[in-house]
């Protein structure tokens, strides 16, 4: 269990931040710029993957930049939980980069250099959150992510994008300053440290009411997790270009929110303390309400991306639900759902983008019959939605199975009902899309015959992620191995 000092964690974070320089410099040469983007994303994944063996052996790496407050440094540490999230995020970034090239070129978007540069900064921030050694460092990268994604959300620069951007920052920056910052300072005054420590740091330092106050502050302070009622920014942020929605609002940004909540639950509060004080119920209640309400709202949305956004809000709370069960199986399910949902949701968004490029349609009611013209896209969409619903033989089944076991272990039968009802609702809002695509008759004379599949640079990534949904069901061992290290070290 040795954690060695090493420069690698810093390299993993910085490579894409420094990568913005060549991207900005090759402003006028798109091919070179995109080559840099892909190269940097490959490099990032390689660095992170290179650290995997040590983590699997129970060790890790750390790097301390500067001790800014007594007992609190800006420091990075690679452990199993961070590695798990970083692997998923950096792998999906490669695919998103390739997809972005196809998407942005097909639509001939403006300001592509700014787009790729902001994307690279956001990626640095995401990995920074994954590898943060303490709450202060996590907060730093969390804010960096909110700010660097602002230009991406508002990419269109029209009035709708402007108001979405305003909402985005109000929710994310506002809650982090108003809730997370005071909570962090309170924890610091109570314990004198902010380090993530297995088993938590608050045990014996704070009374029950303080702990519950801190828990509520932090769950709502990390508004990126979109726990209701602080979810409004996510559907609004769907004005962004589709690769942004898919990666950031399907994977990186929202997962950073959930990851942060799980981080503090496991490593600041400690599941033992929450179980003693019976505070898991705070998490499960908030999560259950969000799961059910978001799924119901998703049923009413006609805009495909908005439906996916509400689906995301619901699915994110599964992970919080799992953590709140405070049983080993529940926590495993929550963490497992982080990657299963990531692969599923990114596929769905990439499909939505492919449909938009090919047919310029964004409302579900206008998509009748498109599946017959775009079989690859719709096939991938079908697989991914099955995974999110939680059907075997797809990855989502494993995480939901584990969540149900966790609920039964904890004797919380109500939560079993929540998971099952919500799965039915998921099916109810996904199947009509697929059904209409393959079987519904389109109205006559709307030029549907000319619709063809999206560019191949878009199709490859979405096929790969769809296959991964399948592959993760058959070979989940790496994910489970890492999760095992988190849940029972």
């Amino acid at each position: 269990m040795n954690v060695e000092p090493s420069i690698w964690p810093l390299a993993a974070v910085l490579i894409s931040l420094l990568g913005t320089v060549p991207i900005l410099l090759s402003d006028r040469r798109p091919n070179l710029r995109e080559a840099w983007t892909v190269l940097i994303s490959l490099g990032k994944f390689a660095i992170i993957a290179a650290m995997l063996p040590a983590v699997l052996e129970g060790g890790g790496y750390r790097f301390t930049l500067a001790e800014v407050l007594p007992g609190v440094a800006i420091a990075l540490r690679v452990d199993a939980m961070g590695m798990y999230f970083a692997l998923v995020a950096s792998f999906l970034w490669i695919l998103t980069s390739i997809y972005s090239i196809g998407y942005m070129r097909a639509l001939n978007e403006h300001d592509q250099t700014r787009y790729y540069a902001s994307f690279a900064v956001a990626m640095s921030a995401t990995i920074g959150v994954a590898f943060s050694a303490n709450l202060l460092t996590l907060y730093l990268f969390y804010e960096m992510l909110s700010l660097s994604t602002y230009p991406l959300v508002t990419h269109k620069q029209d009035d709708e994008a402007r108001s979405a951007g305003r909402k985005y920052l109000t929710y994310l920056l506002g809650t982090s300053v108003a809730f997370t910052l005071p909570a962090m300072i309170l924890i610091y005054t109570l314990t004198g440290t902010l380090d993530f420590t297995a088993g938590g740091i608050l045990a014996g330092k704070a009374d029950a009411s303080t702990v519950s106050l801190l828990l509520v502050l932090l769950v709502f302070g990390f508004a990126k997790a979109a726990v209701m009622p602080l979810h409004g920014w996510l559907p609004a942020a769907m004005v962004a270009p589709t690769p942004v929605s898919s990666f950031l609002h399907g994977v990186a940004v929202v997962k950073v929110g959930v990851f942060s909540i799980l981080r503090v639950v496991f490593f600041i509060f400690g599941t033992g303390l929450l179980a003693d004080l019976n505070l898991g119920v705070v998490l499960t209640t908030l999560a259950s309400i969000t799961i059910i309400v978001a799924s119901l709202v998703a049923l009413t949305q006609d805009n495909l991306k908005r439906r996916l956004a509400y689906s995301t809000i619901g699915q994110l709370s599964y992970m919080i639900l799992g953590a709140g069960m405070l049983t080993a199986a529940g926590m495993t399910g929550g963490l497992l759902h982080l990657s299963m949902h990531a692969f599923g949701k990114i596929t769905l968004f990439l499909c939505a983008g492919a449909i938009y490029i090919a047919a310029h349609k964004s409302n579900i009611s206008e998509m009748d019959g498109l599946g017959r013209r775009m079989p690859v896209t719709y096939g991938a969409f079908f697989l991914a939605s099955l995974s999110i619903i939680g059907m075997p033989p797809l990855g989502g089944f494993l995480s939901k199975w584990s969540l149900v076991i966790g609920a039964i272990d904890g004797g919380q039968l109500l939560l079993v009902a929540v998971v099952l009802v919500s799965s039915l609702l998921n099916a109810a809002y996904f199947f009509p899309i697929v059904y209409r695509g393959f079987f519904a008759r389109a109205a006559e004379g709307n030029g549907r015959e000319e619709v063809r599949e999206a560019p191949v640079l878009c199709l490859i990534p979405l096929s790969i992620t769809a296959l991964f949904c399948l592959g993760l069901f058959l070979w989940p061992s790496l994910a489970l191995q890492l999760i095992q290290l988190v849940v029972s070290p």
Partner: protein
Amino acid sequence: MSPTNLHMYALAAPLIGAFAVMVVGRYSRRAVAPLVLGVLSFSFAAALTVFLQVLSGGGFRYVVGNWLAPYGIELSVDHLGSLMQLLVSGVALTASVSAVKSVAKDLEDRQHLFFTLYLILIAGLHGLVLTADAFNVYVLLEIASITAYGLIALGKGRAVVSSFNYVIMGSTGACFYLLGIGYLYILTGTLNMADLARIIPTLESGAALATAFSFCIVGLWIKMAFFPLHVWLPNAYSDMPDGAAVLVAPLMTKVTIYLMIRFMFSIFSPAYEFIQHAGVQQIVVGVAAVGIVCASAMALAQKNLRRMLTYLIVAEVGYMVGGVWLANAQGMTGAILHIVNDALMTLCLFLAVSAIAYHEGALDFHRLRGLYRRMPVTMAAFTVGALSMIGVPPTCGFFSKWYLILGGIEAGQWLYVGALIFSSLVNAVLFFRVIEIAYFRMPDADAPGTGHGAVQVREAPAMMLQPLVVAAAALIGVGLATGPLVQHVIRVALPGGF
């Protein structure tokens, strides 16, 4: 030039430089800028050396011309003083690089007059941060203020009226302070800070001493624009020439807060019952909190970038006064750290404003449209300054706010803690409103430098951009260096009793 009187050279250089500029500037306008920059570079180098010496060898007291106290002039070069001297000389140097350009544009044939006042002001500030004599504080404060009145009056439009308002308020503050030290002199027979600190605890603390204390403090509050004594500041600071604003806005209020710390803890002590008194603390911190909230709200109502920033200065004064009066180590650390950080943030933002104004003129919000395309470097630096004001790590603004909130929690001053968080949120709204206008809105067709189609990049001259970039980098650099800065300088500089 022996190592023990280097700080005197740092002080004397701008003073001598001021008169040299006055004389030389009459004959050659081109010689003004090199002279000013040369003098200030020398001063900065000297201050840096002194600071490093104090860090390694500890502070010392220095008697000017060997006239011994209580008759002579004594200077105290300790950790806090030399840190402040470094800050003053660093900010002055950075600001003047930009001021040289903007003054050449604004005040073509009065440059040498401007820089004469400018250098005397800097010399006055150097004196203020070093002096160990309560009466010299008065003299030097008037030197700094009177030159500032003059600099403000050089501005356009209503500048003369604003300057006159400032004269009235500033002189009132000076009278309060002078009366206060009059009382002190009657009570103790000395005005040397060390002697005062020795004698005051032996006195019976009665109404006379309390009067002396409160007159001096109120005098300083007027000078630093502590809410509700702030009404002169927004007009004065927004009407003065840009070249003066980049110097006066970062330094004047901050140095006055430093003087308040000196007065409270080098002359009086934390044990003095007026400072100890929970009710007094409660009231002062409460007023500071109300001031922060009100000034932030007034900043929200502004439609001009420069005026918005002036109200933020008033809010920040509330931060620091509140932090000092929390009367605990965390709060004091936060206040002193915030003096440094706020000086740098204000410097960065006013340098950005000055760079924008170079081409754009007035800074009403609607004229800022499309600025991210026209001035990308300036706006990038402005964004860093804005993030620091909001308090986003790793910019330095986050860390001083951290200590201030920590101190507030320790003292149980929840109103103050709430005000700090409220003000961070308001700052976020304020700055993102500006960023939104500059980023989204496309400029009107008739605005200067824009046509239809591609927008031309048109930055301010390099002389104005470089100091701005340096200031923005300093915000992040100082933020990352907070740990050593607090541990090796500010903790040592905390007055005895904390």
